[in-house]
């Protein structure tokens, strides 16, 4: 329990700061207490001439006024004595109570009951320390100016006794005990408020998406946070640079692959036109197909790298019509569709104006349509549609191919993941590109079954 409390207090900066503040309060209190002890030992304030003298004057005035009426005087002095004992609510504690002795000449006309009894004092008008049977007392005596009356005020000389007596009544400890909880809460609050920049700093770091490598904005305004924010920014910059290197390496590599690929294809196709033997042609067709597959893979790799770069650079957006873009892409891909005897159809019920990157959206649409054409059975139809949905636009691509089993829906967007046991060649990059572009545009991506529970329907909801 204690260990846990310790762990909580010390493992939190707020806890540490509050603890430090409380320690400081305690230290100050101990210092104040020490000073009080020292001060009490040095002198008793009540018997200091400054305060004791008017009090003695008042008592002597009463004595002088009732000089000839001893009965009345005795009664008056008794009442004064009771008042004095009650004055600081200390009548029952011998260490704390204040007593007095009144004399006329050498005759005692009043003495407080109990210790120390009538003391004989020497000095007038100042604090005097006396010892009676080993017990220290402090006294103050004053002589009347008009008669032989003299009053002596007496308090205990035991400093420690006074302090412990006060302590036992909670006069010294109680304020601390009462005030500590009231101190802890404001201290905790103030520390939390003071540490708010720290929390905002961590919130900014936390809110970062993994591919946002721009320098942190918050934190540089506070001297204490600056080294940390600088270190984090330097790390971000290094990561960004290394990602950039990786991207440009892949982009360069993909680029460099294109020319030899083009050469391979054109040479094989030229050779094919020289060959009449069907077996030769079959083999050469295989070469053409693999080179086409490789070209597609290279194009997709490039697309993906470009898409990453676009995300990192927050590339420029423009207002564009999805209807026009989809129409344009379908026109471009209709050759492929015709090759596979697939009929394309677009049902555009809206213009579908969105803010987006033309290039990214183009490659997203291309990949979806190419996939649909690839997996749809020959002679079937691939349908695209565009319709307003709420405040956004819904774009769908539907084919009558084998579809994607539901349990693989989450995985098909992974790079290089391919649904097992399928005859169609592919890279496994197409849907990864679609997902990357969709995420960048805040597009919700859904995989559904086709109209008759057959095939695949991909829905994209643009905000």
């Amino acid at each position, binding site marked *: 329990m204690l260990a846990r409390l310790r762990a909580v207090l010390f493992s939190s900066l707020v806890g540490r700061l509050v603890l430090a503040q409380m320690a400081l309060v305690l230290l100050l209190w101990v210092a104040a207490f020490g000073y009080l002890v020292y001060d009490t030992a040095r002198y008793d304030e009540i018997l200091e001439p400054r305060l004791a003298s008017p009090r003695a004057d008042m008592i002597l005035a009463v004595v002088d006024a009732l000089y000839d009426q001893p009965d009345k005087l005795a009664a008056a002095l008794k009442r004064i004595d009771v008042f004095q004992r009650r004055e600081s609510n200390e009548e029952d504690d011998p260490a704390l109570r204040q007593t007095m002795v009144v004399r006329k000449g050498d005759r005692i006309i009043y003495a407080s009951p109990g210790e120390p009894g009538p003391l004989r004092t020497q000095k007038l008008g100042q604090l005097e320390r006396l010892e009676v049977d080993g017990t220290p007392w402090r006294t103050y005596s004053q002589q009347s100016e008009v008669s032989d009356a003299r009053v002596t005020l007496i308090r205990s000389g035991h400093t420690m006794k006074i302090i412990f007596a006060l302590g036992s009544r909670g006069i010294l400890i109680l304020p601390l005990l009462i005030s500590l909880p009231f101190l802890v809460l404001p201290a905790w609050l103030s520390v939390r408020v003071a540490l708010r920049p720290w929390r905002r700093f961590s919130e900014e770091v936390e809110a970062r998406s993994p591919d946002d490598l721009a320098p942190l904005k918050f934190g540089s305004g506070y001297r204490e946070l600056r080294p940390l924010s600088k270190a984090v920014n330097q790390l971000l910059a290094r990561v960004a640079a290394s990602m950039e290197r990786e991207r440009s390496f892949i982009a360069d590599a993909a680029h460099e692959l*294109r020319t030899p690929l083009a050469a391979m294809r054109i040479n094989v196709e030229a050779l094919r036109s020289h060959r009449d033997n069907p077996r030769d042609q079959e083999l050469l067709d295989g070469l053409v197909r693999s080179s086409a597959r490789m070209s597609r893979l290279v194009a997709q790799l490039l697309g993906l790298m470009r898409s990453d770069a676009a995300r990192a650079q927050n590339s420029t957006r423009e207002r564009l019509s999805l209807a026009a873009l989809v129409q344009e892409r379908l026109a471009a891909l209709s050759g492929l569709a015709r090759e596979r005897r697939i009929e394309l159809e677009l049902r555009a019920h809206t213009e579908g104006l969105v803010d987006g990157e033309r290039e990214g959206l183009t490659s997203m649409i291309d990949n979806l349509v190419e996939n649909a054409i690839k997996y749809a059975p020959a002679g079937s139809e691939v349908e695209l549609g565009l319709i307003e949905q709420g405040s956004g636009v819904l774009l769908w691509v539907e084919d009558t191919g084998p579809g994607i089993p539901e349990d693989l829906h989450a995985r098909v967007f992974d790079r290089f993941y391919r649904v097992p046991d399928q005859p169609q060649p592919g890279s496994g990059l197409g849907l990864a590109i679609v997902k990357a572009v969709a995420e960048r545009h805040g597009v919700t991506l859904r995989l559904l079954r086709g109209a008759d529970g057959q095939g695949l329907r991909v829905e994209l909801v643009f905000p």
Partner: protein
Amino acid sequence: MNILLVEDDLELGNGVRIALEDQGLSLLWVRRLGDALQALDSKPFDLVLLDLGLPDGDGLTLLARLRRDGETTPVLILTARDALADRLAGLDRGADDYLVKPFALAELVSRVRALARRSYGMAGETLEVRKLALHTATMRVTVDGKAAELSRSEFDLLSLLMKRVDRVLTRRMLEEQVLPGGASNESNVLDVHISNLRRKIGPGYIRTVRGVGYVIDRQDASGDAS
């Protein structure tokens, strides 16, 4: 027909040379920008096939020089750069068409023929698809030798489709190019024109891609909607 091929890659250049020569086209192949400029100075070409990344400079500088000199020789760019910005840069500087490596032989041949025809047939060319023929200069259209009477819009539509045979032209593009007042989502004027055109030239030529546009296929494929 004289074609200048500017391509530094040995295998690609040689492959393109042999493939195009097989098609009966005559071709001069150079591998450097300097050689290309020299060749262009020495004799006229009907078409330039231009690679952009050359060892002694960017192909775009050759294109820029060609256009500055007022040459209208069609230029088809062959390049490994496929980013939209790169493609636009090439077309902005006066290239006529753009082919991204790697390309299919059929695609290359069809683009080369289309561009060469353009440079050749300024005086009036004849576009032919199967039994359909369109004479640009006389604005005459014949089907199997018999003349078809077309309106101006119908003729424009047909010539656009025949110039880009095998390529689907989007409704939007056709509406903008042919119809007065440009594209409009609601109207079916384009469909009316196409249906009139089909009635006049006969079925089987103009294929609809529903919602997308129209195309004239060089070869009739059975099973396709006409």
